[in-house]
């Protein structure tokens, strides 16, 4: 009865296999699910365990003074500003927490001192609490109509929130105080969204050409704004040029670097993205673009980069953060190929911020998930603003939207 014996052998092996699997599970599972990383004890006292911000004497003295006289708001504001500068330079969110802690005494006040308002708004903006930031900034410009920085910040936050009226108000105010280059750079995205990318581009590039003596940060900002207009006009080569110029002025300009990575990814130069972002994996927004580039060049879905990205997403979820919804949606769409999840994230993201990049993302994920109804907010926004953007048009056409 060869058949029976064979049957018995296979089923017998199956039973053994099951027993083995269960035994392995009992051993493997605890280490997988316990999720506590392995510990170690160094043997060399000189081994560097962590790099920490250098404490300079001035800052230490300021902190000591603040500790003994906690009501000295000007000290606190200066310390917080220093941390925000570090945040901008390194894209390290711990500095935001430090800045906020320095202002703890005034943080929950509805009407803190004006200097605190600006710093608080900046921190809130970085944490994507745009509603909170706008409240602070509206109050601030009412208190100090001549505060150019306040107006600039307000313009940016209002643009991100889709409040173009207030954005233009503040752009005009900042422009009056700080000059034509600021005015043109501030207006650029607003004009682009209103469907006037061509004239805005001409205006800004002329102004920039005439502002060779302007400060580096201003020129960098103008170049990035110019690049965004170029992308809207479908001129990705020009955009890349402007962005590289911006990065030459400030290699730590995270925004410009990300935008350049997006241009390279969209124009199928994924291999260049890896070198563009090499060594900058610490920054989440860079890491996700690296992962997307790896996926595009190697079809890789399981690499050190994608694993690191998933860890970051999990870590953020664990602490209840939703700061990087846009990046999570991009990752879900491009690397995990999980269109429904990407769409959900894109929708949640749209509720928080309404930049052109967010509109493109929502439209793209709606196309990928084959859910045109989900794109209704974007379609409404596009109709209302009359925006003309090369990348967005592609998605809108696929959604069957006629203009």
């Amino acid at each position, binding site marked *: 009865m060869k058949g029976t014996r064979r049957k018995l052998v*296979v089923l017998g092996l199956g039973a053994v296999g099951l027993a083995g699997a269960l035994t392995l599970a009992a051993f493997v599972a605890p280490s997988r699910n316990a999720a506590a990383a392995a510990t170690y004890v160094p043997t060399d006292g000189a081994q560097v365990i962590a790099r*920490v911000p250098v404490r300079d004497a001035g800052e230490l003295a300021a902190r000591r003074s603040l500790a003994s006289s906690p009501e000295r708001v000007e000290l606190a504001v200066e310390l917080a500003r220093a941390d925000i500068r570090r945040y901008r330079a390194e894209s390290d969110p711990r500095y935001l*927490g430090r800045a906020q802690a320095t202002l703890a005494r005034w943080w929950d006040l509805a009407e803190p001192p004006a200097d605190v308002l600006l710093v608080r708004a900046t921190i809130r903006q970085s944490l994507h609490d745009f509603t909170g930031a706008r409240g602070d900034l509206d109050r601030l410009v009412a208190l100090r109509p001549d505060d150019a920085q306040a107006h600039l910040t307000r313009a940016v936050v209002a643009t991100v929130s889709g409040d173009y009226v207030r954005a233009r108000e503040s752009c005009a105010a900042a422009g009056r105080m700080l000059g034509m280059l600021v005015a043109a750079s501030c207006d650029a995205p607003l004009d682009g969204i209103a469907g006037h990318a061509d004239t805005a581009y001409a205006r800004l590039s002329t102004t920039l050409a005439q502002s060779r003596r302007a400060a580096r940060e201003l020129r960098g900002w103008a170049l990035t704004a110019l690049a965004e207009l170029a992308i809207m006009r479908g001129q990705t080569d020009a955009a890349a040029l402007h962005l590289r110029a911006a990065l030459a002025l400030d290699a730590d300009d995270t925004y410009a670097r990300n935008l350049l990575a997006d241009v390279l990814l969209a124009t199928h130069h994924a291999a260049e993205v890896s070198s563009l972002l090499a060594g900058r994996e610490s920054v989440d927004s860079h890491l996700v673009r690296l992962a997307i580039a790896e996926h595009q060049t190697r079809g890789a879905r399981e690499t050190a980069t994608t694993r690191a990205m998933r860890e970051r997403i999990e870590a953020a979820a664990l602490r209840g953060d939703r700061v990087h919804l846009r990046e999570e949606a991009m990752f879900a769409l491009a690397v995990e190929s999980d269109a429904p999840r990407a769409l959900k994230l894109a929708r949640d993201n749209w509720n928080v911020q309404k930049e052109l990049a967010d509109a493109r993302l929502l439209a793209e994920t709606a196309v990928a998930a084959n859910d045109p109804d989900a794109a209704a907010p974007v379609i409404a926004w596009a109709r209302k603003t009359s925006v003309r953007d090369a990348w967005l048009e592609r998605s809108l056409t696929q959604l069957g939207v006629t203009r």
Partner: protein
Amino acid sequence: MKRLLVIAIVFTSATAWAHKPSDAHLRLAVSGETLSGRLDIAVRDLDGALGLDGDLDGTVTWRELTTAAPRIAAYVESRLAIAGDGAPCPLALGAPALTDLSDGAYWAVPITARCPRAPEALTFSYRLLFDVDAQHRGLVHVADQTLILRDGTPVRAQLDETTSFGTFVLEGVWHIWIGFDHILFLVCLILPAVFPRRGGRWQPAESLREVGREVLEIVTAFTLAHSITLVISTVGLVSLPSRFIETAIAASVVAAAANNLVRGIDARWAVAFALGLLHGFGFSSVLLDLGLPSDQLVGSLLGFNLGVELGQLAIVMVTLPLLYWIRRTLAYQAILWAGSSAVALLGLVWTYERFVA
């Protein structure tokens, strides 16, 4: 030369620590009145709170850390309090070590807390680091929950003993009853049992016992196969992309149905075993979505699997006698042929949908 290069690359990527907001992790397991586990705090954060960088050179060395160990312990003990049902559970810190998370090295100190009696709920008063980093979060992992502690206000965790075996059994039963692809696969394999081939011709079966034995073989083979893959996939030993698995499961339904039409393989127990391996992966993704208690993993696995088998058994115990009863009728032939065709078609649709999705 090549070796140096490899080392250099490894070193570089190891220093690309994530820039993320500040978190500390407190993991505790509850055993009666004793809580035990570990507290992990980023060394960088401890420096921010206590100033560990003695020589102000921008680095914290192991020596600087061990020198500061008593201060760190005092800091933790003064700012962390755990109460069980309102009564304090005194903490004891053990010998610290280090652990590496995505954003750098963490101070990892074993923690034990002894409550006066076995608690039903724990209250955590955690005040570390908020005064130097307002975005710091204390994450407490206990009893399969994660609590987010954010500003020093005490937070309560209910300790629920009953994420029970029974719940997982019921989930298993439910998921096989709603798993039409699994059911159809199994039913297709069972269908011909009441009309087996003997001596080159197909005839109605003579006895329920003979039918029963064949069905038992098929069901056992299916059970063993999907149990194995359920286990190894759930614990993460093997991980296959879900799109592939779902498509393959749909294809297996087509295969089982088509086998009835062309009468290809008689040893359907072998088909049940081979293709049953795929079905286990499918069950695993369901089970993982339910969420598994980390300290009762094997129990919940067994419970879920048992539920699947019970559900399966119920289906077989209903279908088999019915099929046996009508085996000589035209109705049976219709079910066998038209039914298998319909299932094959449905399976093809599923395969296409799942592949394209």
